[in-house]
C-alpha cells in the first residue's frame, strides 16, 4: 500500500523508497519536485515566495519550503546526503497560478508568476533540467508526485481535469 506524505503550505518533504508519494495543493504557490529516479529519492517543496527579502522573515523548521532559494538549498543538500547523484537530479513543477483576474492590467503583486520565474532561474543556475511543468492559468491544483514512476499527477477539482506530466 502506498504511503502518501502531504506537504503543507511552505513545507518541504524528502522521501526515499519505492512506494511513497508526495502530495500538495497549490494556487499561486508552486510545487517543485526534485528527484533522482535511480536512487529513488525525491523532494517536494510548497514554495510561497521567491526569496527572503528582509530580516523579519524567518525560515522555521517546518517551513523550509516557503522561499524558493532556501528550499532548493535544503532539498539539494539533503538529497545528496541521502545518496542522490547531483548529475541525475531532475525537476518537475506545477502551480504559480494568477488567481485573481482584473478587468484592467493593474494587478496585485502577481506572486504566481514571480514564483515560477524565481524557480526557473534557480534551476538554470544549478543546472538541474526541468523535465515538465504545469504552471500559470487561474486555478488551484492538487499535485501528486509518484517516486516509483517519476510521474507528477495534476488534478483540478474546479476544472474537473486530471493529467500526468
Amino acid at each position, binding site marked *: 500500500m502506498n504511503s502518501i506524505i502531504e506537504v*503543507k503550505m511552505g513545507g518541504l518533504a524528502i522521501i526515499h523508497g519505492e512506494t511513497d508519494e508526495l502530495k500538495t495543493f497549490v*494556487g499561486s504557490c508552486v510545487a517543485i519536485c526534485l528527484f533522482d529516479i535511480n536512487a529513488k529519492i525525491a523532494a517536494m517543496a510548497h514554495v510561497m*515566495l521567491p526569496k527572503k*527579502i528582509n530580516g523579519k*522573515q524567518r525560515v522555521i523548521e517546518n517551513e523550509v519550503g516557503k522561499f524558493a532559494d532556501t528550499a532548493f538549498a535544503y532539498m539539494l543538500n539533503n538529497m545528496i546526503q541521502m545518496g542522490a547523484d547531483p548529475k541525475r537530479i531532475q525537476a518537475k513543477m506545477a502551480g504559480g497560478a494568477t488567481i*485573481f*483576474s482584473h*478587468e*484592467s492590467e493593474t494587478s496585485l503583486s502577481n506572486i504566481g508568476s514571480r514564483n515560477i520565474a524565481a524557480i526557473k532561474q534557480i534551476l538554470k543556475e544549478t543546472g538541474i533540467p526541468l523535465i515538465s511543468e504545469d504552471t500559470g492559468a487561474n486555478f*488551484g491544483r492538487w499535485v501528486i508526485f509518484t517516486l516509483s514512476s517519476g510521474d507528477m499527477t495534476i488534478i483540478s477539482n474546479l476544472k474537473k481535469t486530471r493529467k500526468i506530466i
Partner: protein
Amino acid sequence: MNLKSNHDDLRQLDRVINSFIVSKTIPSLNVILEEPIQYFHKKTQAIQITNLDLLISNFEEMDVMSAVYVKCGGDLNIGVLWYLLEEESKPLAVKLLGKSHLNEFDKLAISSISEIGNILTASIVNAICNEAGCKIYSSVPGFAIESLRILLEAIVSDFGDLSDTIVASAVEFYGLNSGIKLQMLLIQDPKEAKKIIA
C-alpha cells in the same frame, strides 16, 4: 510593540473595525442589497501566514467561492477579501444587473460583483483613513472563483513579502430577506495594524 502577542491590542482593533462595520459598511450593503442586514463579527486574530487552517472552517473546505479582492497600499497595506458561495453569487449578480436569470458568469456579472467588493472595501478603508489620518489607495478589484484555501494562499503570499504573520479580521453579513451570506476578511501587517488603534 508586537501586536501578535498583545491580546489587548487585538481586542481594541476588533472594536475599532466593528465600529467601522456598523457605521459604514452595513449601511452601504443595506443600500446595495435593498434589504436589512445582520452581521456577525467573528474575531480579529494574529496568525502565521502558513497557518490558513485558522481561517477556514471544515464546512468551507470543499466549497467553491466567488470572491473579490482589493489590495490597498500607501500609508497602510491592507487586503480586503469579500466572498460568498458561488451558487449564491449568481442570484446576486442577477439582482444587480436587473436580469431574469444568469447562465454563467460573463464579464458584466463579474463586473457587478467586483463593484460590490469595491464599494464595500471603500466603506471600511475610508473609515480607517479618517481614523488613522493616513492616505490609502486601492487596487482594481480582482475577481476569482475558487476554493477559500486557494484564495487565501494568493493573498497571504502577497503579504509574505512584508511579514511572517498577518492580522485577520473576519465578518459575516446576512441579507435577511434573500438569505445571502457574504463574508469579509480584512488582512493587515501586524505592525501596521497598530497604527489604526494608536
